[in-house]
C-alpha cells in the first residue's frame, strides 16, 4: 500500500508528486463524467449500450486493480476474485438469456430426423 515498490509507480510518484491512487481517482472521475455525458449524445441505443459497457469495464478494472491493489498483490488473489465470474457467466447463459420469449423452437442443426421408429 503506497510503498510504490513497482517501477512505474515510483516513476509516476517522482514525476507528478502524487501517487498512483490519486491518479486512479482522477481517472475514475473523468470516466464517470464521460459515462453520464454519453447518455445525452442521443446515439442509437446500441451505441449508448456499447459506450456504457466499455466505460463500465474500464472503471471496474480501475477500482479492482488499484484501489483493491490486485495489481500489487499476489496473483492468487486475482485468481480468487476472477474464479466466481465463471459461474456468473453460467448463470447469465442459463437465466438471463433463456427467456420464454427469447428463443423458440429447436434450431434445425440440432434436431436430427428420428431414425428408429419407436412403435413396437
Amino acid at each position, binding site marked *: 500500500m503506497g510503498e510504490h515498490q513497482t517501477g512505474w509507480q515510483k516513476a509516476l510518484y517522482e514525476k507528478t508528486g502524487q501517487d498512483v491512487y490519486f491518479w486512479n481517482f482522477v481517472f475514475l472521475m473523468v470516466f464517470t463524467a464521460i459515462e453520464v455525458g454519453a447518455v445525452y449524445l442521443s446515439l442509437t441505443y446500441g451505441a449508448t449500450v456499447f459506450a456504457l459497457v466499455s466505460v463500465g469495464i474500464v472503471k471496474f478494472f480501475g477500482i479492482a486493480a488499484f484501489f483493491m491493489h490486485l495489481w500489487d498483490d499476489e496473483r492468487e488473489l486475482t485468481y480468487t476474485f476472477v474464479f466466481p465470474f465463471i459461474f456468473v457467466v453460467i448463470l447469465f447463459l442459463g*437465466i438471463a438469456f433463456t427467456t420464454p420469449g427469447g*428463443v423458440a423452437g429447436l434450431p434445425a442443426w440440432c434436431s436430427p430426423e428420428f431414425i428408429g421408429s419407436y412403435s413396437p
Partner: protein
Amino acid sequence: MVKGSELMNKNKIRVISLLFVIFIALAATPQMTSYPTGVNRANGTTGCACHSGGAGTTTVIVDGMPDSFVGGTSYELNITISNPNIAGAELSSNMGGFRLFATDGTFSAGENYTDLVQVMDGGITHTESGNDMRSWVVVWTAPDNEGQIVDFTVHGNAVNGNAVGNIPADGNSGDKWSTFQASIPGAAALGGGAILIEQAEPYEVAIAAITFGIALFSLMLVYVFYRNNPDGFNLNGLTEWLKKWMTTTDHKEVGTLYFVFSFLFLLIGGIFAMLFRLQLAVADNDFLTQDQYNSFFTLHGTTMIFLAAMPMIAAFANWIIPLQIGAKDLAFPRVNAMGFWMLAFSSVLLYGGVMSGEGADITWTMYAPFSNSLGEKGASAGTTLFVAGIIMLGISSTLSGVNFIATVMTMRAPGVTWMKMPLFTWSIFVANAMLYLSLPALIIGTVYLYFDRTIGTHFYDAAVGGDPILWAHLFWYFGHPEVYVVILPAFGVVSEVLSTSAKRSIFGYKSMVYALAGIGVLGFIVWGHHMLTSGMDPTFRLIMMLTTMLVAIPTGVKIFNWLATLWGGSLVFKTHTLWALGFLVTFTMGGISGMFFPVAGLDTHFHDTYFVVAHFHYVLVGGTLFGMFSAIYYWYPKAVGRKLDEKLGLLHFIITFIAMNGTFWPMHQLGIEGMPRRYHTYSVDSWSELNSFITMSALIMGFAQLILTWNIIRSYKYGEKCGKDPWGGWSLEWTTTSPPPTPSFHEIPTQEDDNLHHVESTGGGMFSRMWKGVEPK
C-alpha cells in the same frame, strides 16, 4: 460477601435468562391472521369478518338435517335468520345473509331458490337478490363415504339495511351475525358398529410430538450435565455450563452442537414423514386435512435437507477437518459459531407457522406464483416466516462456507499438501465450494419472494409482465449443486471407511480427486433437468439434457474406485463398514434410477411422480443418511473416547436397510403407474396396496432410529473405551488422543509420506506446485 467475579456471574445469568425468555416468547406468539378479504381459511369457524358486531341476539336455525346421512341422498335444508330488534330496510330488501360450509358433500339451490343462493368455493351463500330475505332453502347431497362425520358451520347475519343507497363503506355497521354448528355422522359411522373414536386433530399430534421431543431433549441435557459433575449440580453450575455451550467457538464443541441439533431435527422430520405416510396408507383417506398434509410434507422436505442433513455434515466437518489437516481450529472460530446459531434460530422462524396450524404449505421448492400468493386460495400465513427462515439458512451456510474454504486453503499442516489430503477433507472442500457459489442465487430468489410477500413487490407476477419461471431457474441454479453438496461428504466418509475397513489405501487417489472436481463443475451446468416440463424454452432443455447425461460418469468412476479399494484387502465387518457397503448398494441403485430423467420421452412421464420421490430418497436416504450413519459409528470413538455398541449397531443396520428398501422400492412402481407427487389423497384403488406396504415399512424405519438414539446416549458412559486409533486409520485425526485436547494440536504435526519419490523442484506456477504437492517455503 459476594466477590466481584460472583457478581459478574450473577448478571451473566440475568443476561442468559433474558435471552431465553425472548426466545420462548417469540416462538409461542400465535400466528392467526385473518385477511381483510374475508374469513380466515379454516373454513368459517370464526364467523364472517366482513360485518362488524359480534354474535348478538341473532339466532340461526337450520331444520331438515337428518340425524345420520345415507351416502348419495340429498337433503333439503331450510336456513332461517331471526333477530327481533334489527328490521331490514322497509322489511323487503337487504335484510340478511348466510354462509354455509360442510366438510364433505355438495350443495345446490332449493327448487325456487336457484337465483337466490350461489355455491361459492366449498360452501353456499346468498346471492345479490338473495340478500333481501331471511330464510333460504338449499339442498345438500351427502358424500358416498358414510364412514365419516360431516361438520356443518352456518353464519347467519341479520342486516339492518343501512347499506342500501349510501356508500357501502359503513353499510355493514350495526348488523349482528351469529354462527350455528352441527355435525351429522354417516350411517356406517354410527350403525356399522364402528366405535366413533374422537378424531385426533393431527396438528395436536404433531405439536405434542415436537414439544415431547424438546422436553425429552432438555431432560437429557440436564441429565448429561448432572453426569458430568454430580456434585456441581446447582443452578450456578447449570448456567455456567450453559454459558460454556452458548459462547463456545471451539470447532469440537460447535461440532457437537451441530450434531445434537441435526439429530433432533432428523427425528422431528421423521415424525412428519410418518404422519403423512399414515394419511397416504389407503385411498381417499382423511386422517390429515389437505392443509395439514401440505404443510407436513413441506416441513418434512425442508427439515430433512436444511435442518438435518446439512447440519450433520457440518457437524462432522467441524469435528474432523481441523484434525485431519492438522490445524488448531478453523480459520475464523467466531464466524463458525455464528454459522451454527444462525441455523438454530432459523429453525424457530421455519417452525413459526406450525404452532398456529398455519405452517408453510408451499413445498420445499417454493415455486413462485403459489408461494408469493396471499388470500384465501393462496399460501398459508406462516409462509412469510418460513421464507424468512430460509434467508437465515442462506446466511448460516455462507458463513460456514467461507470458513471451511479458508481453513482448507490456509491452515494445512506441513506435509498435508493438496494431493496428500484425506478424501473426506477433499469432499468437504468441494462440497462447501459448490454450496458457497450456488447459495447466492437462492438468497436472491428468496429475498425477491420475501419482498413479494411483505412489502408488495411483483417479481414473479405474470399480471405485470413478470416471469414465474425466473424463480424455478434461481432456485434450481442453487438446487442441483445443493444435492451434490449433500452427497459429496457421504462419498468422503465412504472413501475413508472402506479404505480403513479393508486395511488398504484408497484405489486411484488422484482419479478420486478428479472425479470430485468433475462433479463439482458439472453440478453447475445441469440444473435444467429439474424443469424439463416447466415450459422452459426448448434449446435450453436440449443443452440441459446433454450435460445431465455426462454427470453419471464421474460418479461411476468413484463407485468403481471404491470397489477396487476392496481388492486384495482384508475386509473387517464393523458397523460403519456395513453402513458403507449399504451405501454402495442403495446409492448405486439410486444413481441408476437417476439416469431415467434426462431422457425427454421418460421425463415427461416421470416428472413430479413417485418415481422422482423414489430416486431422490434412494440417493438421499441411501446415500447421505447411510453415509452419515457410517460416519457416526466411525468417528464417535474419536469424539467421545468410547465405541458405540456393535450389536445394537448391527440391529439398527439390518432393520433400517430392509425397511428403507421396503419403503422406497415400491415407489418406483407407483411412479411408473403415474401416481403424482404431493397428493393428499388418490382415488385409484390399485395404488392402495403398494402405499400401505410403503407406510408399514416407513413406520418400521422411523422407529428403528430410536435404537441409534439409545446407542449414542448409552455408549457416552458405558461404551467400550478405545485408544487413539480404534479402527487403524491413517489420517492425522488418529494421531491425537480420543477426545482430542483443546486446541486440537498443541504443536502442529507433520504428515509423512509413504510414496518414495525424488524431491521435485520447488519452482513452477501455483497449479504445478499444487499437483506435485510441493510447498514453496
